[in-house]
């Protein structure tokens, strides 16, 4: 029961800088009361050998994410995708986005609905 015609969101989290535009764009678009939002960003400080560390931000759609179907119906990008400062969110059919996945590491494809 694949959902190739289904749409999802590709996140190139290597470039996510944790600026929270997606979180607030979603609040504005869908009228969520703080602190709720359809998109949240996780800050992950990861230890690496020789006690180096690596800071990664990982945005992810929460339970409230409706993939902005009221926007996508009019051919617009979801509010978070449109406003992402690092342009690391892409919305589209899962089939296409999966194709993108192969091109570089540190990417993740979400199908939140």
């Amino acid at each position, binding site marked *: 029961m*694949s*959902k190739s015609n289904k749409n999802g969101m590709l996140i190139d989290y290597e470039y996510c800088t944790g600026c929270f535009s997606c979180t607030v764009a979603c609040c504005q678009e869908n009228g969520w009361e703080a602190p709720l939002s359809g998109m949240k960003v996780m800050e992950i400080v990861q230890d690496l050998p020789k006690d180096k560390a690596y800071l990664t931000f990982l945005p992810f759609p929460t339970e*409230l994410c409706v993939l902005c179907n009221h926007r996508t119906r009019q051919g617009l990008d979801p509010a978070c995708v449109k406003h992402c400062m690092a342009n690391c969110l892409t919305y589209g059919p899962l*089939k296409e986005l*999966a194709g993108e*996945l*192969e091109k570089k590491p*540190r990417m993740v494809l979400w*199908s939140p609905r």
Partner: protein
Amino acid sequence: MSEYGMLIDYEYCTGCRTCEVACKQEYGRPAGKVGGVEVTEYIHTLPNGKLFITNIPTFTRACVFCAGRVKQGLEPACVKHCMANILTFGKIEDLHDKIPKKRKAILWTKG
């Protein structure tokens, strides 16, 4: 290895961390050091004040997608032992049509 992907039906990730220890056992990684996969618990409140717990496995820079095991036709250690059976590993192009219709899923490339 980037044409491979890991599909997670994370709706049912219960946060039991079996994947973390399976990975550490597979590569003899000492405790305290980061393994190939890390599960983060996220407690968020929903509009009606209800709480919702989501666990999200993230594949870290240390993950090699168990290249050795895959070569012998075995599943990665975490996939094999996942208690909720929510990890599927494979080539990306045939993974994307395994994305469950109704439920939430993530498809990772290498960390």
